[in-house]
């Protein structure tokens, strides 16, 4: 697994890793410079100005304004470089490309469950192709967890009741750690797993080998039928609930006069607690499915509803919420 055995540095296995490590070394260099400067100063002063006889007192020096300004302003400026660099790599890490592969993760005391759009479901293992951006949409079934991929230098909290996401592009075939980094109770340190980065062909073969329940959308469709969602949500828009065709990415007007953009989080909330946001012109009739649909199944339902908005969800299984693609982002390295 990776280059374990060299206990200093995690493997650089994503496009972020080099950027983050370079930033890390930059800060080490700057802080090393200041730490060394102050250390040498206090040691040298301690030796040169050591007390030589009992009655000796120090010189009366009250301060020096130019010096005070210099050592306030120069560190401020240097720290702004750190801030800018850190903020730009953060922005990059928080902005998944539109063509990213979409995978769902659900944290649960004490395991990670992953679902691929093609239907594969796995526990504590995550198979991804090398060289392709992957967006992971994350939630939790119980308490807060955090999905951490140290070799990819990224992590994101899994928060019950909402979707968060992270993305990465693996650069090296191999197996890497998955950790939970938000303390979640008894077996927190057992909530670990492995990301398996594969050649694209192997990944395709792996995908083909599973998914007895059909694709995620197919599973969602079956759930949609089993839960009788279609009795109200008619395609015609004449049902007791709004039509679900072509809604993703649109802004809907709500009964209370506000508006909301339809994304995965909105869909999820509308299923488990539809009363939270009622579309204008409709009655709050829909039952709350809170507690009746597991997070895994919610994911399938959300994907199914997304599939009803073909133009919003392009052919590639990309997220409706993904902001504009930073395709030409110069910080992105292969």
């Amino acid at each position, binding site marked *: 697994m990776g280059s374990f055995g060299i206990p200093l540095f995690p493997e650089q296995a994503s496009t972020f890793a080099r950027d983050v490590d370079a930033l*890390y070394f930059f800060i080490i260099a700057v802080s090393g410079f200041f730490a060394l400067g102050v250390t040498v100063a206090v040691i040298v002063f301690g030796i040169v100005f050591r007390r030589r006889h009992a009655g000796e007192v*120090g010189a009366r020096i009250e301060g020096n304004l130019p010096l005070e300004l210099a050592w*306030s302003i120069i560190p401020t400026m240097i720290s702004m470089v750190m801030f800018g660099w850190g903020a730009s790599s*953060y*922005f990059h890490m928080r902005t998944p490309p539109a063509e990213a592969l979409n995978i769902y993760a659900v944290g649960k005391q004490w395991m990670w469950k992953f679902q691929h759009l093609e239907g594969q479901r796995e526990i504590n293992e995550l198979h991804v192709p090398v060289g392709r951006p992957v967006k992971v949409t994350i939630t939790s079934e119980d308490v*807060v967890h955090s999905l951490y991929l140290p070799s990819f230098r990224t*992590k994101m909290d899994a928060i019950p009741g909402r979707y*968060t996401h992270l993305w990465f592009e693996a650069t090296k075939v191999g197996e890497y750690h998955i950790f939970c980094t938000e303390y*979640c109770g008894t077996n927190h340190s057992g909530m670990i797993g492995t990301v398996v980065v594969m050649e694209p062909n192997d990944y395709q073969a792996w995908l083909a080998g599973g998914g007895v329940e059909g694709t995620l959308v197919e599973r969602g469709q079956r759930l949609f039928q089993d839960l009788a969602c279609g009795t109200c949500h008619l395609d015609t828009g004449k049902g007791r609930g709004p039509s679900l065709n072509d809604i993703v990415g649109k802004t809907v007007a709500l009964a209370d006069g506000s508006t909301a953009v339809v994304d995965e989080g909105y869909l999820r909330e509308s299923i488990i607690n539809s009363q939270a946001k009622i579309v204008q012109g409709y009655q709050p009739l829909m039952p709350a499915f809170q507690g009746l649909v597991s997070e895994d199944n919610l994911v399938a339902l959300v994907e199914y509803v997304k599939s009803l908005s073909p133009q919003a969800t392009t052919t590639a299984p990309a997220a409706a919420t993904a902001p504009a693609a930073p395709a030409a982002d110069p910080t992105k390295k292969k």
Partner: protein
Amino acid sequence: MLDTLKLPERHYLNNGHGLKSWLLTKDHKRIAIMYLISISVMFLIGGLFAAAVRVELMTPEGDLFLADTYNKMFTMHGVVMVFFFLIPSTPAVLGNFLIPPMIGAKDLAFPRINLLSLYLLWVGAAFFFYALFAGGVDTGWTFYTPFSSSASNSNVVPTALGAFISGFSSILTGLNFIVTIHRMRAPGLTWFRLPLFVWAHYATSLIQVLGTPVVAITIVMVAVERMFGFAIFDPVRGGDPVLFQHLFWFYSHPAVYIMILPAMGVISEVVSTFSRKTIFGYSFVAFSSLAIAVFGFLVWAHHLFVAGISTYSAMVFSFLSFAVAIPSAVKTFNWAATLYKGAISFETPMLYAYGFFGLFLIGGLTGLFLATLGVDIHVHDTYFVVAHFHYIMVGGAIMGYLGGLHFWWPKLTGRMYSEFFSRISAILVFVGFNLTFFPQFMLGYMGMPRRYHAYPDEFQVLNIMSSAGAAVLGVGYLLPVLYFLWSLKRGEVAGPNPWGASGLEWQMPSPPPTENFKEQPVVHGEPYEYTPHVAREANLV
């Protein structure tokens, strides 16, 4: 000359005997001593929990304790150390004892409230002990919801109430200090003649008074959710789990400055005294304390960079976190400049101050890594963060506290401790500390998450180093207990001003009489004036 020194006949320690004379005292000095004993006991207990954690982590498998037991160990370690040791430490012991004499007053403004603060700490601790003996608590000292409010089945409510009640102890102490510093300064003691120790405590008190009520309310919300089923943080019932994190850190980030600012105050006094020189840039050091207190309230969300907050708010909080680092840097530069052309000697308190420089530098500078968004995503909630805040809170705050205790011990007790053993202990603490916590930075960057009972094999070497360091550190912390106790009976008599220091508190006899000063002192000069005459009389050993 040493032989001629005698303890004063009448002083605060022998003014009244028996338990009652202590428990009902209004003397800030006696209250400080009771705080000293109380928090030393808490430090010992917190240390035992830490030892248990370090022993478990020597092997990758979770083989010594059950997972639940381990989780309780680190939780109770954190709760005890933060709420019952570090927050009270320097302010309640040294601040309590020294602020009145430093400003030429007989006592704090509200002596009875001062005693009440101590009792509140005890009541809070009683709740904690109840939780401990009823089976402990396993939420981490941060009590994150919905784990603490819905999932944990340990003793969350009594522990939370313990923290809540001890919070009021802290609020009342802060209030007392603020009023005292405003109203009771000696004639001639203007704001800019105050010792920097007093400025630091003034800033600390502001945080205590403004911040602690927020965490108190937050803790009550968790308790109410647990006991009565109100939906506040539980998302299943419409609550917001992340709201807790915002509220908690709105207090707890400033609270980390409650722990470090008083220690910074100690360092200013010690550095000035042992270099016999006024503090370089007095007003910059004084105002940086206030700047820290103010900015400290504006950076809480840097604990939430991966908790789903918006990208832009993360950027704002990152920016502000860099801003809060500047006043700390300014202080450090000023201390270093103070040494220039000083008359420096290295008695134990100064060794602690030097140790503080080294450790606080590393602690503060690693804060920059965490404030940098791109890096924090990787190291958040790993051992890197654990190492960072231990460098500050143990390396910085406890070094300051211990340095201060060694500095003022002759004032507290009238006697000197063994200079030889105290130097050894200062060195052991410094070496042991670095051995314990430096490897944790590497562990964190390698990706080892915090609060892990078991871990992958490749982390073992660094964990063993850390545990070995903890053993050295433990010895370093235990030694002072021995030589301090020994000094009470056998230590040399110290005299009023063994270090040749300039503060008003050194004009009282050691130990001081209950009323501190026979006559109201009047201040004519600037702070930190050292005259060869006073210096020669110092009976440095």
